[in-house]
């Protein structure tokens, strides 16, 4: 986007387009779930500050990597230690 494409006063005319912003680009570590330890309690889902964790069809949980910043709060809060962070590779 060039400076000429900006609206007057940088007004944004499309409501809710912050959802397009890929905060997943900030991530250097990615959360991984160990299904053997997961008790499907949903604590990770509740604590995720970006609402970037969703429930899968088989009732486990995964991160939406478009938004997940890899902050590790889910890892810290997980009751059974089922989530760990792994290095994000290029």
């Amino acid at each position, binding site marked *: *986007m060039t*400076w*000429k494409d*900006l609206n007057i006063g*940088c*007004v*944004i*005319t499309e409501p809710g387009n912050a959802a397009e912003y890929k905060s997943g680009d900030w991530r250097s570590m990615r959360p991984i779930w160990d299904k053997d330890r997961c008790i499907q309690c949903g604590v990770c889902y509740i604590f995720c500050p970006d609402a970037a964790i969703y429930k899968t069809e088989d009732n486990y949980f995964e991160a939406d990597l478009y938004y997940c910043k890899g902050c590790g709060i889910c890892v810290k809060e997980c009751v059974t230690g089922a989530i760990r962070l792994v290095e994000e590779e290029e």
Partner: protein
Amino acid sequence: MPKRVGMEVSIAASEAVRLANVDAIAAYPITPQTHIVEHLSEFVANGELDAEFIPVESEHSAMSVCCGTSAAGARTFTCTSSQGLALMSEIVFIASAMQLPIVMILANRSLSGPLSIWNDHTDVMLVRDCGWIQCFGENGQEIFDLTLCAFKIAEDHRVILPFIVNMDGFILSHVIEPVELLDQETVDKFLPVYKPVYRLDPDNPVTMGAFAMPDLYTETKKAQDERLKASKPVIEEIWKEFGDLTGRYYSPIETYKAEGAKTLFVTMGGFSETASTAVDMMREEGEPVGLCKIRLWRPFPFEDFWKAVKGVDTLIVIDRATSYGGPGGPVASELRSALYTWEDAPKVVDFIAGLAGRDVAPGDYKKMYQRAQQRIASGDIAGYEIYGVRE
């Protein structure tokens, strides 16, 4: 033919705001701007002006409220001075970035400390780079005219920027002068109802004042700079239209007896009138002096300035603010910079004078002229001199 009436300049300024039929006013009283706020609140209370008058607990809130009302599509006015401007300055920069066409009269007063309520330009120089259009008036009539024009310029869809009309505190704000007002019908024709490009509207939601990441901030600043620079031809067009309507024409740079002058005084605001008297006096004595008045301070009218000073040997700049430890007063520093690439640029001799209401009489201009000759002869024209300071 409209009648000239004697009135305090603050009252004339309030009359301009009333005639502009503003929708919202938020202001906090501060000397020497108080009479404007008081008078406007009376207009609203008496039903002479159909506007929301929003009393606030500080100038920070005044400017915040103005941003809100302007964003909602209301023609918005505020006025302040000195410490009030300093307190609202955080929001002043946001108003221009969000392109909210608020009009503000700034009754120029020195900044504390020491505490002083008197007139100079230290307050406006605090927000020199705030991105608002900024102009100076030198008498009551000009304040009235420029305030009316300010609304039309600020709200023009080619501009959409906030506007500061600088009015010297006390030496203008509290002085009774003959002023020719306009009737409501004429003003309504000149200044139609404000039509915002974007406004806060639940049926048409928009985001205003959004966050910008490093990959966009630079573009927003470029857009803001270009927008302010592009306002200049519109300012001139609207001042011309006002001139055709009233016979009172305004230009970004104005000169007085500049023809054949070897030396020009450079002034802004109310000092220009005294400087004109000084020029008359010195011309009678055979000195080749004239006057260059900067009316439009932002966007700075470089072309007009170059045209006005071409062929002149010396510019004596009267600065009314100090840049402590800097290269000179803010005006002289800018003029030197504007002339830097000129092969035969006039010499710029800078005097800081008239701080916090200290009088600068016509005789003082003569003394500054003589002192400038001495400084040029001794090669001492870099930097600045604080005129009249007791050593």
